């Protein structure tokens, strides 16, 4: 009763927006009113949102830095894409695609668990290095595969699913990914996950099974990255392994960080905007100006980061904050502090090694540090 009463419009607005977008754009597309270029942009946006939301589970809620998200995607794109390619002549494109989602997702999830295992021991920068290495290993493996298996350097041929409706499938995938992520985060399990982020030592002492939750989060996150990989494979005629390099992982991370750590709606908006910007820059700046693409892209990112963080702009930010403006429109009777429940703070990007970790009790039993003796004023 209480939980149902506490339902907030902001909790479900993202489903509504995406569903409406999928229906409206789907109808437009089926009557032929949506240009092909926009269909492609929509496909890419949907893929980016799936990636950003799944990564935000690891980075924003579990508090671990993963730089190998494109690696999971690569596994999904190649293995799931292969399934679609092999099976679509016999069972049709759509069933083959659905099967591809399952196979690609599950294989990526298995990789996620394998990468999650070191995550139990490593933290912060060290885990970032492991995941980074994983991402690089995956794409170079496919790069050096034989031509008959995965196409090697030439790329693997895939089935291009019809533009007219692939983006609708992609948006449905986004909805499923969102539902799983949000339902998980807004449950007792989500509390356990965020407790690990907030204070792992206390979480352990409170009896939270840290191993289980870390592996589960890595697996679910990798699953959706794999599914996004299958979508990417289906939106092209080939998959090129070079695409899944380090830069791509960083791009996904940028979406999560720009959207605000642990803020799913923020990640969605950031993913959509960055993808749109990226594609627009590629089409607008052509020929001689093509070299400017990355430059403009980087400049825009720098401006956003400065805007988000600069102390001088704090008053301005707070006055014209989206949340405050929204609050004027929708009067939220509940305590405003309640809404901040599952958000981390901006300055909690998990790259910094915190004092907690230096003093961590579970690094070594024979560590000369005792966890509770290190602070000043200890008497």
């Amino acid at each position, binding site marked *: 009763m*209480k939980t149902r009463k506490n339902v907030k419009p902001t909790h479900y607005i993202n489903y509504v927006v995406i569903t409406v977008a999928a229906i409206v754009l789907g109808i437009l597309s089926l009557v032929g009113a949506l240009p092909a270029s926009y269909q492609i942009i929509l496909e890419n946006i949907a893929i980016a949102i799936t990636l950003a939301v799944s990564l935000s589970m690891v980075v924003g809620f579990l508090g671990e830095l993963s730089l190998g998200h494109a690696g999971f995607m690569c596994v999904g794109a190649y293995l799931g894409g292969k399934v679609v390619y092999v099976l679509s002549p016999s069972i049709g494109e759509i069933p083959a695609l659905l099967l591809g989602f399952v196979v690609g997702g599950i294989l990526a999830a298995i990789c996620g668990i394998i990468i999650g295992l070191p995550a139990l021991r490593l933290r912060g920068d060290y885990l970032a290095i492991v995941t980074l290495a994983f991402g690089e290993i995956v794409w170079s493996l496919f790069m050096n595969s034989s031509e008959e298996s995965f196409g090697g350097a030439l790329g693997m041929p895939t089935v291009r699913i019809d533009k007219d409706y692939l983006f609708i499938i992609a948006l449905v995938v986004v909805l499923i990914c969102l539902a799983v992520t949000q339902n998980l985060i807004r*449950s*007792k399990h989500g509390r356990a996950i965020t407790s690990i982020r907030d204070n792992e030592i206390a979480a352990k*002492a*409170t*009896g939270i*099974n840290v191993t289980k939750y870390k592996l589960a989060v890595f697996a679910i996150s990798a699953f959706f990255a794999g599914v996004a990989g299958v979508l990417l494979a289906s939106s092209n005629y080939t998959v090129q392994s070079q695409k899944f390099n380090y830069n791509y992982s960083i791009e996904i991370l940028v979406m999560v960080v720009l959207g605000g750590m642990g803020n799913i709606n923020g990640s969605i908006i950031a993913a959509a905007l960055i993808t749109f910007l990226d594609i627009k820059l590629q089409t607008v700046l052509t020929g001689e100006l093509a070299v400017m693409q990355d430059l403009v892209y980087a400049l825009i990112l720098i401006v956003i980061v400065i805007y988000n963080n600069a102390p001088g702009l704090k008053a301005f930010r707070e006055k014209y904050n989206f949340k405050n403006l929204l609050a004027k429109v929708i009067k939220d009777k509940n305590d405003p502090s*309640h809404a901040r429940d599952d958000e981390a*703070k901006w300055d*909690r990007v998990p790259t910094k090694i915190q004092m907690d970790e230096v003093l961590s009790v579970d690094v070594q039993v024979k560590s000369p540090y005792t966890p509770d003796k290190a602070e000043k004023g200890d008497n």
Partner: protein
Amino acid sequence: MSKIVLKTENLGISFGGLKAVQNLDLEIKEKQLYGLVGPNGAGKTTVFNMITGVYKPTTGRFLLDGEDLTGKGQEAINHKGIARTFQNIRLFNNMTVIRNVLVGLHNQPEFKCSMVESIFRLPRHFKTEKAMRERAKEILRVVGLEDERNNLSCNLPYGKQRKLEIARALATNPKLLCLDEPAAGMNPNETAELMDIVRHIRDQFNVTILLIEHDMKFVSGLCDEITVLNFGTVLAQGKPEVALSDPEVIKAYIGG
């Protein structure tokens, strides 16, 4: 004679050449309020870290209700029934007060709800969430934080943060509750209030309490029995008035 909840036998740990704690024998009886005191660096927190699984003892063993828990992990020991608070507060700062307690309730068998049930929002999810919130409110009421439940825990004043840590530990339904300096940083009024709360917790939750404290008024007013440690060895054991007037103990504290 009531039964023994925690028993340590020859418990000890050394870090390299440093013997932080040695030959510790404790017997804590059911519903007892047991104090662990000693000067700085005496090894009190190290004892806590051993019996909560943070450190693995190098010698000896400890038993909870007759079950040997030596060498088990922190999570496993918590599930068996030892909960603790920390000397330097370790709350989940980005969560509201009630959520901190809800995390403590996570492993209670009556609030079992698998991840799949939560993801698909099956009826049990809503049922457990509701029941957990009710239970969390009850626990917060005991420590007097019910009205603060929707505030972020990092915004609470220090004394209330300490109480919240106790509430979170209590939520795990422990047999033995270990409080590491619960009264540190509290003013005399708050300390007196805390004494009432600790007694109340013991009676209402049927829990045995082991606490570390430097406030001697607090210890002698509250504890049934104490152990005084210095340099990792036991100086005196017994009723507070007796143990604290032991000449060895006075020497360790005041010097001479």
